[in-house]
């Protein structure tokens, strides 16, 4: 059998969208190579998510209780499920956590892996993964030649298409095993807001906002849209906001459906992090700013006037 195993992700007890994106992508692969889709969730409460995953193609929804996140513990548990299910293809999220455990899982399973794929297709029974390289200046297509083909996949890069799977619910006995890194404490003070990595809308501010006292203008728009707050490196280097908001080459790579850049010039290093966004809106008073070369919608105007007007307009239509 040429089954596909998806590792899904939860956040604060809720199913992340990437879990459905990967299950849907797995369904297409499994249909092409003739196999089943198993979606694994790290939870002791798998029943509550089974319906959602069945609706996008999961034949089996597996719950494994591996406790608090640790890359080693998750890798041990996921590998145990791989040994049991013997999938031909494994899809994992290219999330903060996924990047860490996927590397260990690949070695345990003696598999080749393509990380940060944005496109998945099938050719001659093998998955072809497409990924941007060299800051998005080229795209590479790879096949994995080992028995198990592994991929980590960028959030928002896969369509979610309804297609009913068998949806059987299973509980796995896999355990975290030995973990040699102990978590002493966590500081999640920036944690309640929408996270950049999987946000479907991002509103970002650049040096054009003039100073840290003006973030509320950008944040208001973000809050109105349920969007994550991004920033250019210039604002981070100036100390206006923490590095965790930085988008770009030396910040986060994002692929939202909509990226709204306010007062950002569009330097190549910034584009490297957001260039694959589906729709890009640029608000910049300099009509020659490079950001307009990639913007779907360009607004040549003062952000201090346009952004608040946009916020109140959205408030009106979104209620």
């Amino acid at each position, binding site marked *: 059998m040429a089954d596909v195993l998806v590792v899904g992700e939860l956040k604060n007890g809720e199913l992340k969208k990437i879990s459905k994106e990967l299950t849907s992508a797995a369904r297409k692969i499994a249909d092409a190579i003739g196999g089943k889709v198993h979606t694994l969730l790290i939870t002791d409460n798998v029943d509550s998510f089974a319906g959602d995953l069945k609706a996008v193609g999961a034949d089996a929804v597996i719950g494994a209780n591996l406790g608090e996140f640790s890359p080693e513990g998750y890798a041990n548990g996921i590998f145990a499920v791989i040994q049991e299910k013997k999938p031909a293809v494994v899809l994992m999220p290219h999330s903060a956590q996924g990047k860490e455990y996927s590397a260990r899982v690949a070695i345990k399973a003696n598999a080749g892996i393509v990380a940060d794929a944005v496109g998945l297709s099938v050719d001659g029974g093998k998955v072809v993964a497409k990924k941007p390289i060299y800051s998005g200046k080229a*795209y590479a297509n790879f096949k994995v030649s080992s028995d198990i083909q592994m991929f980590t996949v960028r959030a928002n890069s896969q369509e979610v298409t309804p297609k009913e799977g068998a949806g059987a619910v299973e509980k796995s006995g896999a355990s975290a095993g030995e973990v040699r*890194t102990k978590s*002493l404490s966590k500081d999640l003070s920036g944690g309640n807001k929408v996270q950049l990595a999987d946000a479907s*809308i991002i509103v970002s501010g650049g040096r054009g906002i003039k100073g840290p006292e003006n973030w509320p203008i950008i944040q208001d728009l973000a809050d109105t849209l349920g969007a994550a707050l991004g920033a250019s490196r210039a604002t981070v280097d100036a100390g206006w906001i923490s590095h*965790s908001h930085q988008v770009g080459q030396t910040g986060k790579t994002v692929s939202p459906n909509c990226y709204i850049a306010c007062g950002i010039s569009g330097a190549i290093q910034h584009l490297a992090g957001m260039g694959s966004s589906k729709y890009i809106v640029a608000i910049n008073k300099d009509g020659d700013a490079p950001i307009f070369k990639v913007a779907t919608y360009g607004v040549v105007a003062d952000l201090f006037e346009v952004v608040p007007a946009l916020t109140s307009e959205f408030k009106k239509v979104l209620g």
Partner: protein
Amino acid sequence: MKIVVLVKQVPDTETNIKVGDKSINEAGVKWIISPYDEFAIEEGIRIREKSGGEVIAVSLGPDRVVEALRTAYAMGVDRAVHVKVDDYVTFDSTYTSELLANFIKAENADVIIGGRQSIDTDSSQVVVQIAERLNVPHVAMALKLEFDGKKVTATREIEGGTEVVETSAPLAVTAQKGLNEPRYPSLKGIMSAKKKPVDVKKPEELGATGSKLEVVSLEPPPPRIAGRKLEAADAQGFASQLVKALREEAKVI
């Protein structure tokens, strides 16, 4: 303490990339050390400055990567090793990690440090794969590292914040921006780096089993949908047009 730092040479972001069939055209490309690996080199040197020992810089790639190793020498590493492979091999993280892990195993290193990702392939795989191959713990996205003998306390970036973890050497670490400020090589360092030896290792010597990735093709990035600049008399006009475009045309909000 024996510290191995992993140094990857990548095209400078500003450089023009010409896409060939299965690799890029290297003519005119400016090569740099991947920025996160600079944090790794700096951290390695700082650990040695505190705890004594030796820092070994390793770079995997074709002949040109020796330049990156010279820079590492100029910053202050003690030894440099070049694992000589064709550039496309560096697309394959499992092959790369196998070659490097086999080298590091023989060195019996206490700490392995690399960047959180290299800026050409952005895979974030090699260092953690090495940890798995060497059967040691790892700390990813490190912002702070403190050693107390074998015991290591680290602060690292996680989604939405930071985490303090405790583990022990031997271990592997990936460096995130904020870990330190990399030093500039001194002129004296640059001069003496030119004469220092670079040890060359071939894949056969390192006993790796081979690549698990096939490069099917490279292609230029997909063209972006032609954008348009909105026309309006005032901010209110822009706002209502944008809302309309995003809701009715793009259907994203």
